[in-house]
């Protein structure tokens, strides 16, 4: 059909579809970043993520087997599209060697938690001990009133154990933040490096 466009004739093939700026799904992402262990690299990465208005849920950094190279696992809740942008910008940083969002890639993840639980009675001590055994944790410090427990696992396991310990009274807790690595035997298709 012919239509008048801007004061002149032009054939418009179809009614214009208005371009959508895509909004993604908001969820938790796990991003692995391999970096050169230079001064300020952590600040650069944190600044970039904060600049998008996102809060880092957890972050763990440590050296790798390669000298001068560290690896970070970052957990951040955000819109898929914006996180994709963050990943691209992280790749642009001079000191990053490899950046990968492994949220949708089969991966293993572990976190270590230290938790100090109120255990004043022998009954409490018995029950806590049992929970710790079930979750294959360890008691690494004891006082007349408390047990300090160490446990590692994925998010579900740790959440479940903390839920069971809560009624006793958690006095203190420290979490390392997640470390994650993609599984080797699941070869994904069409991944974007």
């Amino acid at each position, binding site marked *: 059909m012919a239509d008048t466009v801007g004061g002149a004739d032009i054939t*418009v093939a179809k009614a214009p579809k208005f371009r959508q700026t895509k909004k993604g799904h908001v969820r938790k992402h796990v991003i692995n970043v391999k970096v050169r262990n230079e001064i300020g690299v952590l600040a650069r990465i944190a600044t970039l993520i904060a*600049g998008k208005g996102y809060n880092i849920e957890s972050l763990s950094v440590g050296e790798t087997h390669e000298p001068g190279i560290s690896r970070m696992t970052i957990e951040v809740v955000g819109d898929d599209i914006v996180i994709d942008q963050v990943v691209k910008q992280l790749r642009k940083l001079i000191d990053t060697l490899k950046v990968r969002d492994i949220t949708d890639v089969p991966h293993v993840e572990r976190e270590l938690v230290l938790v100090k639980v109120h255990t004043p009675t022998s009954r409490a001590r018995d029950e806590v001990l049992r929970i710790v055994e079930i979750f294959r944790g360890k008691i690494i410090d004891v006082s007349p009133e408390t047990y300090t427990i160490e446990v590692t696992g994925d998010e579900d396991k740790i959440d479940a154990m903390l839920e069971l310990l809560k009624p006793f009274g958690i006095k203190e807790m420290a979490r390392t933040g997640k470390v994650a690595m993609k599984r080797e035997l699941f070869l994904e298709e069409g991944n974007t490096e």
Partner: protein
Amino acid sequence: MSRKGADIVIETLKEEKVDVIFGLPGGAIMEVYDALYRDGSIKHILARHEQGAGHMAEGYAKATGKVGVAMTTSGPGATNIVTPIADAYMDSVPLVVITGQVPTHMIGNDAFQEVDIVGITRPITKHNFLVRDIEELPLVIRKAFYIASTGRPGPVLVDIPKDITQQLSDVKIPSMDEVKRSLPGYKPHVEGNTQQIKKAAKLIMSARRPVLYVGGGAVNAEAQEELVELAELMKIPVTTTTQGKGAFPENHPLALRMLGMHGTYYANMAVYNSDLLIAVGARFDDRVTGKIDEFAPDARIIHIDIDPASISKNIIVDVPIVGDVKIVLRKLINELKRKGAKIEHPEDREKWIEQIEKWKKLHPLTYRNSRKVIKPQYVIEQIYEATNGDAIIVPGVGQHQMWAAMFYKYSYPRQFLNSGGLGTMGFGLPAGIGAKVGRPDKEVFVIDGDGSFVMTMQEIITAVQYRIPVKVAIINNAYLGMVRQWQELFYDKRYSEVDLSLQPDFVKLAEAMGAVGFRAEKPKEVREILEEAMKIDDRPVVLDFVVDREENVLPMVPPGKSYKDMILEDGKGAEAETMYLVG
């Protein structure tokens, strides 16, 4: 041979073939200035404010394509150059900024003139360094130049503590290979995915209403030849952003000139009605797209850019091609030629070109001239005439910037140097000085506003001192004109704090600083003072054009609105007209 850190700085700069530094000394950088003095082979332009030095380095870089170098002291010297750094970051200008820092053992102690400039500039530099060891000093400086000038260019800051400039070392200047090897995470050279290029070629051949949308990336990659070839080969009209001006000659029949908020009617109509948009080294800035949901609603989009993070950032594209614009365009042309460069719908393409011609005739860039008052657009046209369209134009930011973009026709790349992304008022004069230093063979015309000019006007003294003959045309409407225009159009003429009618006598001001000043208050005087100004080539000239106070920049796409809401007339002596299009 053992020498001071400061000497190593100068030695490395010479290795990088730096011929001029823009800067201002102070306590923490004195050793380097001493080395500069003793060496004597690098020219230094002493700015009167560090912001001036930064914009000069930008102007130099934008005009020449080389890395601009600026140097300041610590603390306030460093913070004063933050704005130019941010400006360079937004407009992808290759810049190396060297700042002095307090001695290493005092860092973090709130020492005199101490700021954490590396921390401050982290989000506005492509990369930055604090030098911690004299042994790494030459490598860091070379890395800074390499990072600044490759890939998507940008500013790099090197912060050097005073004690490092005083220590002695016999460290060698590293080779380029060593520099590259020290940056394993940085791979700036990308040639574009062949499959994607094939896809793009297919889309281009089958398009009925294609438009090329060209940004600063095409200038940085020096891709003007390829652009003209592609446009002519496939008969594609070309629109450019302010950064992309001159990458495609504006007097070419396929030129649509600028698009966006103050783009031409025909460029915006063409983009709005296109069925294929080929973005080349452009980033879909909001001043270009307007309301993004209604930007080129019917078009498929090919996006060629060196920066993967620019792709699908503001708008989802159909065919992303990450790569150097020049290389990708060359490959694309070869691919098209291999396929016979066939236009599959030649009739539609003919009609498209005809339609655009109609639009060009319907609403050309125009204004109502007057015999009584000077119209700002008239001044720009007269500058165009007086300079035979060959001058490098450097505007400040505001209405005059847009008039300079509209009423001067640009024919070669690096001819229109403006602060596009950050929109820094005060950019014009110092950037113009830098441009003239880099291109003494060209006439450099700063087209400034009276508001912009006073922000950095002290640099006239710098231009006088070094006999840098820039011309400065002040489009003087005694307002913060662009803000006033928005207040007129969107705030019911409540002119809140925009009146600049109390201002210095710009002619006397120029004279007080050792420059030449002229004033035009009537249209017939415009040409006269321009001709007088063109005769002067040993010092700067300030031309005060007293213009119609309430002239508006039109056409205009109101902020956050779509192209179809473009305002073509403001009702001053003519019917107000708003465009409604398809949809």
